[in-house]
């Protein structure tokens, strides 16, 4: 019971800064509390981006080890610990993507907005399930630069400022990338709805 109370106190009451200092002083419990607090975000982000659970786990581990070794690079004035951790995860991810998805990284932001939608025209969502699957597939097909914005802003519900801190880009860039990503997903969704309508007829 005391263990549970102590764990609850570590998880809930202590600030990131206090936990970080305790972890640096050798407290494994503080490290575990930090992991429970931020590990999910880092893991989900890396999993969605890499689509590989093993890679996501490995990167997550490296990110938290970096917390012990590179903590002097963290500046609380510039952002929160979670966004700093996500930024490290992103750098690790991009190294992985550069090795494995070099073709997918050839993404031109200027032309991305002008890509035609697969199915232009009004459509009606018939099967919700299919639509969700279509959007999910559409997210996977998004270029990494757009996909990461969708994951951070739409799925993790970060603010533009937080996402900008993670991605190390201006807030305006985050906003425009998210707009483009959503436009593409909407286009995919419209195409899916059109196909479904066609099948029904």
């Amino acid at each position, binding site marked *: 019971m005391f263990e549970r109370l102590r764990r609850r106190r570590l998880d809930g009451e202590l600030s990131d800064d206090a936990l970080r200092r305790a972890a640096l002083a050798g407290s494994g419990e503080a490290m575990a509390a930090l992991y429970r607090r931020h590990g999910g975000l880092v893991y989900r982000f890396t999993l969605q981006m890499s689509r590989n659970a093993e890679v996501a786990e490995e990167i997550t*581990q490296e990110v938290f080890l970096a917390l012990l070794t590179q903590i002097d690079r963290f500046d609380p004035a510039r952002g929160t610990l979670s966004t700093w951790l996500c930024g490290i995860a992103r750098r690790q991810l991009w190294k992985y993507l550069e090795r494995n998805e070099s073709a997918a990284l050839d993404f031109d932001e200027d032309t991305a907005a002008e890509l035609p939608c697969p199915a232009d025209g009004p459509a009606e969502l018939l099967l919700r399930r299919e639509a969700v699957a279509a*959007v999910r597939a559409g997210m996977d097909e998004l270029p990494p630069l757009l996909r990461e914005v969708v994951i951070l802003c739409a799925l993790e519900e970060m603010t533009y400022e937080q996402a900008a801190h993670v991605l190390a880009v201006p807030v305006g860039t985050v906003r425009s990338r998210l707009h483009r990503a959503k436009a593409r997903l909407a286009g995919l969704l419209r195409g899916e709805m059109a196909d479904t309508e066609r099948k029904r007829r």
Partner: protein
Amino acid sequence: MTTDRELDEILAEIVREHRAIGAPGRLEPLLCAAAASKTNAARTPRFRLTWAAVVILLAAAAAVIWQTRSRHQPQNQQARSVPVPRVRPEPTLPSAPVAERQSVRSPSVASISAPVRRAAADRARHPDSSPQQAASNSLDEFVPLPVSEGLPPAVELSVVRIELRGSDLQQYGLQAPADSVARAMLAEFVVGEDGLPRAIRIVR
């Protein structure tokens, strides 16, 4: 606009599924261990220095103790291994009147028993091994002669029995009791190979 709204709804649904994904639990103990080991690694040099200093100090203390003991050990061992035997007077020895002390070299030496000779030799080699006895005026046992102080230690010793008067003890640095100044007495001298006396005892 309808599609955008529907997209938001679908994204909200995906968010629910997405948020259900948690960090793998098996990383938690690994990270705990990493935090602890990193701290240990950071502390290791300091601990190593501390332990090295402790070991050096202990080794130095042990060396000093060992040297001190080895310096004292021979003396102690000698003192222990050569106990001074209490030599009883030998009343059965014949008393031969001797005129000149220096000439009384030993027809009688051979007749003296071995323990007596050993005791005499030991006492002569270590004249200060029983200062209490030397301090007392009892001459029942061998007492180092004050005149023998400063002489080199004798290697070969012999015991010479001499008849003398109490007043003769003064020339050896000893004070005879007043009642025995004029009395003749039989004494044994421990004499070194240089012919100089080292110790004396009164036989009767």
